[in-house]
């Protein structure tokens, strides 16, 4: 078994007080990524737009709903870099990557590391 990192997302999101996912979807049930069962870890890096912290939540689940989540904060100055590593306890088919906080642009990238058989 080996692993393979793949870019899942690169983009800029205007963060608001209302939670939205990185695709700018407010609907809390809407997945950010589907077909993600082979992803073992997410490496989420990026640059904040202001000094204000950003709350994030990553949920894992499937069409029947969310079954796991991890929350935390991105702290740091404007134009400061952050990195969040997410290793779900089990494979999930769907993931939702959600942020909320004081208005600011969040430019970020999510790399998924997949487990692939040789």
């Amino acid at each position, binding site marked *: *078994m*080996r*692993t393979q990192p793949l870019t899942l997302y690169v983009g800029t999101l205007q963060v608001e007080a209302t939670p939205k996912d990185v695709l700018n979807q407010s609907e809390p049930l809407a997945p950010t990524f589907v077909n993600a069962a082979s992803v*073992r870890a997410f490496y989420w890096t990026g640059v904040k737009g202001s000094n204000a912290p950003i709350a994030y939540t990553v949920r894992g689940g499937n069409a029947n709903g969310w079954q796991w989540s991890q929350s935390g904060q991105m702290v740091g100055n404007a134009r400061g870099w952050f990195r969040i590593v997410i*290793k779900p306890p089990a494979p999930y088919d769907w993931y939702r990557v959600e942020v909320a906080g004081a208005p600011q642009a969040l430019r970020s990238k999510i790399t998924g590391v997949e*487990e692939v058989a*040789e």
Partner: protein
Amino acid sequence: MSAERITRREMLKRLIVAPIGAAVLTTLEVRQASAATMQPYYDPYFVAVLWEGRTRCDSLWRSLKGDVVAILPTVQGTTPYDRLYWTGYALGSVPVNVNMRVLARAVDLSGAPLGSGWRPIGQAAIQTPPQRWFRVEIPEGHWDEYRIEVRSATPRLVYSRVIASQGYWKE
């Protein structure tokens, strides 16, 4: 002495569970040679044998290959491996007391070392009762070349094997 018939798997199992001598290691870690710890490293996918054979140990620091030329490596092309393991068995009926040390270096695209000499990775005094297996884990992986040297006050013949394991997904 009667020869016995065993299968490869059986042979492997005997190697794995053979009692290990109480090796006194100054800087190198030694693991109990038990099936539990050995098995992952014998997974057919993750292991390669880099060298195997017989070394005559005497009072000089010799590479496992027998030479005393300090600028020559014992194994080369080891860049892909994150761990090396040296497993051996010394002949003879008296207790074993063999000194060993491991050196490493990196080479450039023409195969020339980046600089002179070696990086000493560790050394050990392998002291076991007769006919015991010893096993040494060499911690620093991904060097391009290693020189593994042995020395013994009383001449000994050591059969040993250097295996290397590749990096793999660690949770």
